[in-house]
């Protein structure tokens, strides 16, 4: 059992969904990104996604784009992301990296997997790497005991849902809307349908993301998903904050609100 398997065994036993929180490494600085992760774990986040800032984030909306741009301008490097993973894993929350593929390929797929595992990381979420192209990563993840979190979408055919679920481990990341990351007013009607289609082909846990920004939305999603994934709304807390402590406090409070939502009460 990996750390992620254990987490889902626990949340299932507790009759709740897991709360997954995303923050980019190095935004607004390496130190602050670590403090922000600690704050969201204190607030109740169960699993941390550390974003690797990338120059061409085609899956991301304006909020995460802005954060990634700021992190890169401040000089954030791939090795810094590994450091942030180490600090995040030290909180006790299973920690994965969410990254576009080229930085991993450039670092060396095996070398990246080894560094990630060495830092206590649990796996990778790969928004632009589909299982069809992932042979090298599948081999490396097995060698270093890392989970492979692939994405599915409302447009995925039943055949692709089955193939992707089969290739994935830890959990499956269901993007509930056709679109990029970003907080939305309403949760998507496509989410429940997508998860229902997935349930027919897999028993693996399903996390639902894209657009969740508050406890009420988290509660809605927790009705049908094993994990609720929140990104842009957390990043916004830091972008909008007047100063460091206000940003951290906003993150802690949002995490608490979201956590109450996933408790389904």
């Amino acid at each position: 059992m990996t750390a992620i398997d254990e987490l889902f065994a626990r949340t299932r036993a507790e009759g709740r969904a897991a709360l997954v929180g995303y923050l980019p490494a190095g935004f607004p600085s390496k130190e602050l990104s670590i403090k922000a992760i600690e704050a969201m774990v204190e607030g109740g986040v169960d699993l941390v996604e550390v974003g690797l800032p990338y120059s061409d984030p085609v899956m991301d909306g304006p909020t995460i784009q802005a954060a990634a741009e700021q992190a890169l301008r401040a000089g954030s490097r791939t090795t810094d992301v590994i450091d942030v993973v180490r600090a995040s894993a030290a909180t006790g929350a299973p920690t994965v990296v969410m990254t576009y593929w080229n930085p991993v390929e450039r670092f060396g797929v095996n070398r990246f997997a080894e560094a990630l595992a060495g830092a206590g990381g649990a796996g990778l979420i790969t928004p632009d790497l589909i299982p069809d192209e992932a042979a090298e990563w599948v081999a490396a993840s097995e060698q270093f005991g890392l989970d492979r979190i692939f994405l599915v979408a409302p447009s995925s055919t039943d055949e692709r849902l089955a193939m992707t679920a089969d290739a994935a481990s830890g959990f499956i990341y269901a993007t509930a809307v056709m679109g990029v990351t970003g907080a939305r007013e309403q949760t998507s009607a496509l989410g429940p349908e997508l998860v229902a289609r997935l349930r027919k082909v897999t028993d693996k846990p399903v996390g639902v993301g894209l657009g969740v920004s508050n406890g009420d939305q988290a509660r809605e999603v927790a009705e049908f998903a094993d994990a609720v994934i929140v990104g842009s709304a957390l990043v916004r807390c830091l972008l909008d904050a007047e100063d460091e402590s206000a940003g951290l406090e906003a993150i802690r409070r949002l995490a608490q609100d979201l956590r109450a939502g996933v408790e389904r009460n």
Partner: protein
Amino acid sequence: MYAQPDTTGHFGRFGGRFMPEALIAPLDELDHAWTDAKADPTFMAELDRMLREYANVPSPLYEAHRFSEAAGARILLKREDLNHTGAHKIRNVIGQALLAKRIGKPRAIAETGAGQHGVASATACAYLDLECVVYMGELDTQRQALNVARMRMLGAEVVPVTTGSRTLKDAINEALRDWVASVDTTSYLFGTAAGPHPFPSMVRDLTRGIGDEARAQVLELTGSLPDAAVACVGGGSNAIGLFTAFIDDADVRLVGIEAGGDGVETGRHAATITGGDVGVLHGARSFLLQDEDGQTIESHSISAGLDYPGVGPEHSFLADTGRASYVPATDAEAMSAFDLLCKTEGIIPAIESAHALAGALELAKELGPDSTILVNLSGRGDKDVHTAAEYFGLIDEPVVLEQGVEE
């Protein structure tokens, strides 16, 4: 016989699909739609008719006598500059827009750098009655204000992109973001032979007329095949369009000319194959300009149409196998060839195409006076008059009259 890519869009280790899962089913649909359309004689006859009646295709082959004399080899120009909208791009766009009609999607999006593909897209959408939205880096909207006006005149909406480096690569990112959210009703008219499968091979299929026509035209004119075929390479659509007909002709050298900017050694260039490394950008594995961490590096070229840090995967494959070679021409070399064509032939080439001319001049030195070199003149230079005039210092200082002083 050369047969690339494989059924999953790989040219050897290059190409493929590095895209969000949300776009995989739509890309599969596009792949099937294009495969069906290609095999449908009615569709292909319609496309042929449009290219002939509307786009002025086939373009002529022209023997550039005075330029040849200066070059020291027999230079034949494939006159894509005479196509409607002034470049090879119209071939690709009419094809993709007609396919969009066939699929039944009423809205089209496109990215553009210099504005040439944007203008071609706006043109095809007006012609075929499609709604058209063009994404263009904010920096490029300023550098190419006239093309922005042109697109708007043709009824397209131009959206300036303010993220990242605010150039072509960011315009592609933004178009992809639009497409993920709109794919049920929207076709993405991709501007070059790059991107995820099936774009590289579909764009090649649509531009290969350049080489198919030129091969027959050269044979008719000279009785034999050329010694070399030369084209500039941005993303690679005009070059792959020229090369495809000759790939199985082992004696014809295929030479792609990349934008060398200030010189590859300065780091300020867009010579992706010469100066880059293998990686993944915009949906495919290919050569690209990237730093140690795999972050994309901004490219530099006097030619906006070549100013792109990536390149189509088939060119990476042809470079890897040695079937084609890729060499840089600097801004200065391209502008010198530009000047020579203007003065010897009365043809103002696109600055992109001037890179191919510069490459041909180098090649002529190597191949000698008995050789025949086919050059794709991919576009005309009207759009570049301002850039070239500034480069050569041809614009007189504006006369400023002091108030109250009579002239």
